[in-house]
């Protein structure tokens, strides 16, 4: 269940960003998650529910953009989107394929409620 430690890392990164801007709470955490990683979105969502407790992201929504795996042959330029079976040899020329996308593991942005917004409303 490594998704729990991944969820904790996501929240630590988000909290670090939020604290530089004096934010009281995080509303959204947007991540980019490649299909050719070892992280399963459903498991990550579940782990996130647990990991966000008692953090600035307590009420945050985790938005996962799933990035498909795309491969390309350096020689003939054939681009593939392997769905069911990963095959990193070009079906035309037999050369190793390069992975164009699918390995992303990134916190893209966060959406926050700033401290000042809250106090302005009270005032």
């Amino acid at each position, binding site marked *: *269940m*490594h998704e729990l*430690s*991944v969820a904790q*890392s*996501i929240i*630590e*990164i*988000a909290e670090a*960003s*939020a604290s530089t*801007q004096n*934010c009281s709470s995080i*509303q959204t955490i947007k*991540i980019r998650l490649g299909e*050719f*990683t*070892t*992280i399963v979105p459903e498991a990550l969502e579940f782990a996130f529910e647990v990991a966000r407790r008692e953090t600035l992201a307590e009420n945050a929504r985790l938005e996962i953009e799933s990035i498909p795996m795309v491969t390309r042959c350096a020689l003939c330029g054939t681009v593939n989107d392997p769905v069911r*079976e*990963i*095959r*990193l*040899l070009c079906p035309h020329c037999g*050369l*190793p*394929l390069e992975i164009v996308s699918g390995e992303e*593991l*990134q*916190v*893209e*942005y*966060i*959406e*926050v*409620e*700033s401290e000042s917004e809250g106090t302005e409303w009270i005032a």
Partner: protein
Amino acid sequence: MDRIEVKTNILKDNQQAAAQNCQLFEREGTVVINLMSAPGAGKTTLLEATLRNLRSENRVAVIEGDLQTDLDAERIRALGVRSHQITTGTVCHLDARMIARALAEFPVQGLELLIIENVGNLICPASYNLGEDFRVVIASATEGAEKPKKYPVMFNKADLVLLNKADLAALSGVDLAELEKNVREVNPNAKVVTLSCKTGEGLDAWLNWLRDAIASRKMASMNA
């Protein structure tokens, strides 16, 4: 509501710790292998066979990763080789910070080769760089020919794939050529060695690969 751009790798802390480990290993001139496989593929048995041959030639040590027990570290110590056990509790992989903590009490000074035996698991160890020079993944014949297709990320990240328990392939109804083809499909660049710790087949090829890695590191540090 404000949007703050973050654009940070989720595993950044691990990447940083791995880079620090890597710097330390380079400074000491130590070649580091991250040895990974499913549970029961023969990692520790392969290590025993490896160390019986290399312990007289090279200064070598082993870090063992398991959820529980120090049985594997004991097996290595029984051969007269330094070893350190990391027990992860429930964590299913080693990460770079665990290695950094281990190195504080298990120094690598003067070592030519450090082999880190990861937790038996073909999934998340693939995502956690430890600062190693090479990733070696074992697929044993008894696991069937399809493992590389089912766990493509792990096999894709390997520098060397060892097809272990070759002596049991026929008994297990597994075609080693098919297993090798499946490795190549997810990792066309990996070197593949078929071996059996029982018969000794392929053991020299593996040992020579390690010797070459150690020699290259020595050459590099002499030129530096």
